[in-house]
Structure formats: structure tokens, C-alpha cells
């Protein structure tokens, strides 16, 4: 049995309650969502907050809805709810594809999208999806809410722009009619973090790509995205040659480091290979839409 250091526990009853507690407790407190990252880190004593503020009782942080031309996902929505959401699937099958390869059903029942985004693990699947879709984060503090593009959400590995006394409350993704999307991941075993992942959306209109996004996890791409590869595709016909060129460019935007999941050359290769595979499927889906 792994034993965490002494810790106080507080259960927040509303967004305002959570924020006021976190603000009052300061840097030594941490909000806890599903707990699948924070609690293990506490048990290994890699994290030792003095107080954890539990967000699980805040109903208003849960749910998936369409608002105008945006998909809105509450930060405390579980992976399982994202996985099974018909609304998300209708607009972006990438959500379901990514969720299918995140951890296992037990973790997905409690783990949340907001917790995953804020943990900002370099291998975070939903961070890659969010950056691919150019979504936005709504961050709330005592002075109100601010909206930050997900491509500006991270300050580095495990670091985000969410400040002490703030919580991530919503994720918003623009709806793009006619978009196709896909997610590709190589993992050493079911439930493992990715060795490399790539998620894309593509809108093909009039025979050319009119919009696209490429996200990658586990390969140290800045903000989990590949903007230079996207630029190569804009206005181009979705030919195999053009897709391959973009995939190669995406690999150049990755900065993988060697670890027990694999050497850097392999991860860079995967960035290209998986991006190409995802692009092919997303293009086919958009053209079929």
C-alpha cells in the first residue's frame, strides 16, 4: 500500500465555493477532479498538497451541449461521457476515437476532461485533440471568467496558464460543417500512455482543403500542435503526396526525447506515420460527409 503524506480534504459545493477555497488556501492547495493523476502522484509523494479541494460535487461543471456554433463540454465531464456523447461524435468522431484508447473503462468512469487538460501530461490525448480542433478553455476565478485558446493554454509539461485561485470550467470547440476527423495512437499496451499520437480534422470543399488542424501528443510538439504542417495543407488538394508532405512537416514540429517507450527517431517517424494515417481517414470522412 502506498501512503500519501498528511493532507486535508475539502469538498466544494459550487464553482464560487471552489474558487474561494482555492484562493484562500493558496499555492499549497490543489483542486482534485477524477483523481487519476493527482492521487497516484500523492501516493508516490511526488505531489504533496496540504489540502485537496474536491470538485466532484459541482453539478454545473458537468455536461455536453451545443451553444451557437460551439460544442461546450463542462470541465468535470468524465471520459466515459465524452466517449459516449452522440453530440460530440456527430461533429467530431475524433473524440470517441481518442477516448477509446485512453486508459481503461475504470479510469474513464471517474477521470475528467478538465482534469486531463489541467494535468497537461505531455502524452495527454485530449490535449492533442483540443489543440487539433483549436478549442478554447474557459478559466474562472474570483474576478470572472477568461477564455484562452488551447494553443496558448500550456506553459510547458504539466504546466498550464490556470493560476492559483482559478479553475478550468469549460472547454469550447468550434463546429465546422463538413469536417472529417480521426485519431491515431501507438501504445505499448492497452491503457498505456501513447508513444506518439496524432489527431486531425480536415474540411475538404471544392476539391481542396479549406480548414484543418493537427494535434500530436507525447512528442513535445509546442502546445500539442503542428501549425506548419497545417499551413502546407491549406488550399491544397488532398492528394496522397500533399498529405505525406504535411505529415513529414508535422514530424519536424515534434521534438521527441528517448525514453522506455521508444527512441527519438522512432517517435519522430511515428509523428509522420500517424499524422498521415489520420489525415487519410479524416479526408475520406470529409469527402464522404
Amino acid at each position, binding site marked *: *500500500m*502506498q*501512503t500519501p*503524506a*498528511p493532507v486535508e480534504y475539502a469538498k466544494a459545493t459550487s464553482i464560487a465555493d471552489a474558487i474561494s477555497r482555492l484562493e484562500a488556501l493558496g499555492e499549497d492547495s490543489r483542486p482534485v477532479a477524477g483523481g487519476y493523476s493527482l492521487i497516484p502522484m500523492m501516493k*508516490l*509523494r511526488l505531489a504533496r498538497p496540504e489540502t485537496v479541494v474536491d470538485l466532484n460535487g459541482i453539478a454545473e461543471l458537468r455536461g455536453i451541449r451545443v451553444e451557437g456554433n460551439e460544442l461546450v463540454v463542462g470541465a468535470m465531464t468524465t471520459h466515459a461521457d465524452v466517449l459516449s456523447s452522440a453530440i460530440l461524435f456527430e461533429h467530431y468522431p475524433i473524440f470517441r476515437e481518442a477516448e477509446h484508447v485512453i486508459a*481503461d473503462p475504470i479510469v474513464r468512469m471517474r477521470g475528467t476532461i478538465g482534469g486531463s487538460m489541467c494535468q497537461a501530461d505531455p502524452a495527454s490525448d485530449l490535449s492533442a485533440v483540443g489543440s487539433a480542433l483549436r478549442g478554447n478553455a474557459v478559466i474562472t476565478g474570483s474576478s470572472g471568467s477568461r477564455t484562452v485558446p488551447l494553443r496558448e493554454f500550456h506553459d510547458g509539461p504539466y504546466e498550464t496558464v490556470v493560476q492559483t485561485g482559478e479553475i478550468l470550467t469549460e472547454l469550447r470547440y468550434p463546429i465546422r460543417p463538413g469536417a472529417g476527423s480521426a485519431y491515431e495512437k*501507438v501504445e*505499448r*499496451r*492497452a*491503457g*498505456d*500512455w501513447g*508513444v506518439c499520437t496524432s489527431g486531425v480534422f480536415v474540411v475538404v470543399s471544392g476539391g481542396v482543403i479549406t480548414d484543418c488542424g493537427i494535434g500530436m501528443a507525447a512528442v513535445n510538439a509546442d502546445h500539442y500542435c503542428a501549425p506548419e504542417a497545417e499551413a502546407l495543407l491549406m488550399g491544397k488538394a488532398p492528394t496522397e503526396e500533399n498529405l505525406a508532405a504535411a505529415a513529414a512537416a508535422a514530424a519536424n514540429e515534434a521534438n521527441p526525447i*528517448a*525514453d*522506455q*517507450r*521508444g*527512441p527519438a527517431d*522512432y*517517435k519522430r*517517424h*511515428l509523428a509522420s*506515420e*500517424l499524422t498521415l*494515417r489520420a489525415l487519410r481517414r479524416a479526408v475520406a470522412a470529409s469527402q464522404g460527409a
Partner: protein
Amino acid sequence: MTAVEEVPTSAAGNPIGFGRMVRKEDVRFVRGEGNYVDDVNLPGMLHGAILRSPFAHAKINSIDTSAALALPGVVAVVTGKDLEGLGLAWMPTLSYDTQAVLATDKVRFQGQEVAFVIAESRYIARDALELIDVDYDPLPVVADAKKALDPGAPIIRDDKEGKTDNIVYEKWEAGDEAVTDAAFAGADVVVTQEILYPRVHPSPMETCGSVAHMDPVTGKLILWTTTQAPHAHRTVYALVAGLPEHKIQVISPDVGGGFGNKVPIYPGYVLSIVGSIVAKRPVKWMEDRSENLMSTGFARDYHMTTSIASTKEGKILGVKVDVLADHGAFNGVAQPTNYPAGFFSIFSGSYDYPAAYCKVKAVYTNKAPGGVAYACSFRITEAVYAIERIVDCLAQELNMDPAELRLKNLLRPEQFPYKSPTGWEYDSGEYEKTMKVAMEMVGYDELRKEQAEKRAKGEYMGIGISFFTEGVGAGPRKHMDILGLGMADGCDLRVHPTGKAQVRLSVQTQGQGHETTFAQIVSHELGIPPEDIEVIHGDTDNTPFGLGTYGSRSTPVSGAAAALVARKVRDRARIVAAAALECAPDDLEWELGRWFVKGDPERGKTIQEIAMAAHGSLELPEGVEGHLDAQVVYNPPDLTYPYGCYICVVDVDPGTGQVKVRRFVAVDDCGTRINPMIVEGQVHGGLADGVGMALMELIAFDEDGNNLGGSFMDYLLPTSMECPDWELGETVTPSPHHPIGAKGVGESATVGSPAAVVNAVIDAIAPFGVRHADMPLTPANVWRAIQGNPIRTDMAVE
């Protein structure tokens, strides 16, 4: 599928004797009502926690425990210095080496035990560890076994007087080198391959732990502990600690998996005993998952340069293996004394050739101690992997189908009992028949056609075969002992007046189903329903002496003991029945559960009637004692030799290196099957082990000796997602020297399956010019192998 004789069934619907029945122990396990060491809670019990070294090699200058002692709730802090005063700072390993209980001079691997805190709760004990201040001077590290013998390599075991190198043993050899060299000299084809069997960990679901209770009033030590060998442990504690053996009771309650991990004696067990003596209160110590992975008995770590010689037609002429064995910082392997490399010398495998030779050199490194664990049958795992891999390399060199090459060389039935070129005597086998059953089941020829068609389309599937021969059931006392304790096992059987029985075993289950299997053995011999037979084990005060459960030895050794003790009771029952029936014992004939008068089957007594009569007022012949019980000690005449043929089919994605195990056919021959369902369960578990070792399990180390597999995020175990629907088959070739013809099976699948998986993957990517890559075949490693640059898997990936 399973050829079991029709047997009568009991009122409860169980077979009387052999056959499928639901495990008796499962009810409590599936209800969460098992009783494990961590479930033991005694009044006044304290909790221990171990401070472990963050360094792989470092001098200890000083240890300051004052802040920890000042933490409320801390009762004591024990260091190596304290143990030195008691003569307990070092303990013997099961291989006549020594191991530090708590480090005194320096630490020799990351995770080594440095101090022990005893506190009122587990949390306080853990908090106190952070308050202990150890002043270390880091030393140069030997993490790479290949560099352990470099000139100038730091000397790890400078605690041993005069030690000037890192050699555990210089050379252990088997077979005839000159004969083998001659065979190689005359061969058309010689293939050599460096093959690494990397370090893996048994990872039982339950980690190791103990509760020690030294009763200050009676002077008796009761130790509840996670052990596969309670009696051997009792004796070792007596020898090490100087405690009188009759005042030690070792209790191994329900054990949540062992796989060899729970054979050694760990410092934590000793520390709980010391703690209980110091504090005069019971002390519990349970390690956490990372402690288990980083400090307890690992397995393998064998670098095997393997060569095979053959004619150009594919007749094997000889095999040679040159092994560099990495034993970690202390030689903590558990194996029979005369076999420092375990049973590795059985590497000549299942084939008919006269020349085989191996030599093994073992070294110390700054890695956790261990070496024989994880269902390896004393290193037959390594042996089978080496021979089955090199046979495939030869097939590739000869451009011959690996099935054809094996069929050409398999031992033939008339050669049994077969004396191998390294001195083993295989008891029985019909190898070709078993292999053909496997090939038929998998549809071998069709698969090869499919493979050819797919390759033409740029799709890569592979078919891998492993034909293994095991030697299990250690062992004959005159050859096999551990720390001088002969590997024979006792068994007691008592039949109560109402015909219900208790059988007491020296071996201890860790989930193998002994409570069912051994009841069925007694049932088979006496006709008492298995639900009426209680199996008692795991408590040294209540069971006969024996060496415990590992190396697939329970059925070959204790299973034989159980059959023989039941036969002894049956003979006694005959005398009692004869007295009751007023006839001579020789006039009686046995049928299952009953002695009856020859030629007059109506006149007879059931075993239950006989049991009551044996305890009653019936006058027995002079010299015949009453009651119905017996005891035996079984000293096996030899090992039993289970074998099998495994065929694995994989699909490989060359763009990502991902491997999908599509099918796995396993045909096992373990002789008589007592409970086929339990056998199949054992095989399922072992096959999952094999897939895990072949594709993902790994404890690598970086140059600084940091353990890179110290959690389940890093040390990956396979899940159902990686396991195909196992397809099992069987042939039955009974062991001629075992009382019921059974052979051990617990480790067969773990031993046999890794080679099948690896051979399948290499077969799939052979068109890229790949002949070998070391386990685990992670996606990265497979992709790199395709690029011609496979990963070195015992060190950090670069």
C-alpha cells in the same frame, strides 16, 4: 477435447477422483473473503516501513535518525549499525552468498534497505522515513553486466574479504566441450546469435510482507508471511537468527500469487522479526508495489551467445551456449545447491543430437538481487528460449520451414527414457504426435499459404513455433537440496470416524488450486468425495516438513506423496475391512471407495464404514493400530518432463511496429491431468506471462543504476486486450515413475510461450532481413529491427 475417463460423481456433483470441478477455494476468493498476510491484525500491532537507497552504489557516511525518532507515534528506528550488534546486519542467501539486511558500509543497488522504522501506524512509519538523514557518497556504478569485468570496474562486493572483481562464479559448465567442438567442426552450417533474456519481474498481485509476533511470555515466534516455502523458511530463520526451531511457527495464509517471488527470505521479513523482539509487540511490514518491483527477486538477466551446427539438410549436430549471467548485487537465487545456473543445462531441448555444451559465468552488478523467479523452472525458461530461438535462426539460414526442421530433429518415442547430452533423463514423450496435433489445430499449411499471399500484398503476418521440454519436480535428495535441505516432501492423511478426511501438505499454494487438486488425488485413491477432504497447508505447526511450492514441484513431489499416503491408508483400511468382514485381507478386492470380498461383491465395506470401524470397538489383528491415518515422505526418483508444442500467429504493422497476437495454440503434455480445468487455468496464466515478457515486460537500468521499471506505469503487464482467445489442446503421456503418472505443469506455458511469440514476430518481419531482436518486442523495438537496428533492451533506450 479433454480425454478424461468417466468417473462417478459425488452428491455435490464433483468427480470422485480426477476430472473437472470448480475450485473449492474460489468461493472465498470471489467473495473477497480470503485471508492474506495484510489481513492479519493483532492487538497492539505496530507497523514497519523501510527506508531505501536512492543510489545504486554509494558509501554511507552516517545515518541520523533523531528527527524520525522524535515524530509522535514512532516507536523505534533500526539501522544496520544496530543490527551489527545483534549479528544480523547480514544474512545468508539461498545460494550461500550473503545479503545485507540493512546496509552498513555502503548501498549496492537502488532500493536497497537502509533503515527500518517501527510506528503506531503505517502512515506514521512512512512519514518518519522522510525524517531520516542519510549522508551518502555516490560511487561509480556497474549497471551493464557486460562491463562488470572491465579492468577498473568498481568492486561491488568489497564486503567479501579479498574480493578484487565482480565475479559470482567464473565458470559452470555442462556437456562435453571437445565432442561439441568436433561436431561443429564437421558441420555444413553453423549459426551463432547473441540472445538476451532480459530481466523481468514476477509481479504477484499481492506484494511481500509479514507479521511477526515474538510472544514475550512463551518465547515463541509466530510469523505470518508471504512465503511459498514455509518449512524451509522456518529452518533458515532458526539457522540465521539462532532462534530455536521448535519455537518458530511460520504461517503462510492465502497468498496472492508467487511465481517464485516469494521463495527468498527478504530483509523485510527479518526486520519485522527484529522489530517484534525490540518493541515487544507484533510488527507488520507490507511492501508497496514499487518496493516489490525494485527490491525483490527478479528473474532471468541472461546474456546467451548461442550457436547451432547442422548438416545442410537440416540435421542438427550440436548446440553451444556461452552465458553471461547478471545476478545483481547479491547472489540471491533460489535453486538446488549443485546447480548454480539452475537447470539451464537442459538447453539441448527436444531434439536428437549428441553434442551439447554450455558454460556460464556469473557477475555482480549494482542491480537488485535475485535471478531465479517468475515461473522459470530453475532457468529452463532461459534454456528453452535459447534453443527455440536458435532453431528458428537455423531454419532461416537453411531457408527451411521451422516446423519441418523441428519434425526432422525431434526425439522419437522409442528413445525414451532419453539421456540427454548434458545428462538429463527425460522420462516419456511422444513429441512428433504432440507437434502434429498443434499444427493440425492451428491449420499450419493454410497459414503458410495465407502468409505468402499477404506478403505479396505488403502485409506481414508471422507464425512462430516453440517446442519445449521441461524438467520439474525437484528433486531426488541425493542430487538436489537448498541450503542442505533435501527436496523431499512429507504428507499426512487422517480419515476421521465419519469418513471425512484431512490431508496435510508441506507445499503451499499461491493460487494454483491445491485445496482442490490434492483433495482430488486423495479422492482418486480412496473414493472419498473431494468435498469431504480438507487440505491443510501453509502452517509449519500443522503440516509435515517439505520444501514448498516452486519450480512446478507440487504435483510431481507432493502430489505423489498424497497418492502414496492415501494408498497407505487404503492398505490399512483393507486390514480393518477384513477384520470387520471376518476374512483375510488378501481375500478382498478394491473398487473405488470400497473393499469387497473377491467373488462376492455384495459383501464389502465402504471407506466410510471402515473409518468408523477403525475408530470403534472392532477387534483388530495383533500389531495393527486403530484409527485410519498415515504419513509418508516422498523422495522423487527423478524429475518429471512435461513438454508441449506452442504455435503463435501474429500480425505486424511495419509502419508502427505494433504486434497483434492473432492466435495462440498450446498443446501441453503434462501426463495425467488431475483437474483439467485447473491445468487449463495454469496454462492460460502462463501464456499471458509469455505474451507479456515477449512484448512488453522489462526492468531496464540506466548507466547510473536507476531502475526504469519501478511501477506498473513502467513495468507493463499484459491485459486481456493483448491476449487472444487461447486455443488449448493436449496429449497425455504419463510419467512412468510418478504414482499417478502426473507431471508438473505450473510453469510450462511461461517457459514455452515467449519463444513462440518472438519467433512469430521475427517470422513476420523476416522479409526485411531480420533474424533476431531481443525481448521485449515493443513497437519501437520491432520498428527498429525492421530498420536493421534493434534496441538493446537491458539498458535505457537511447
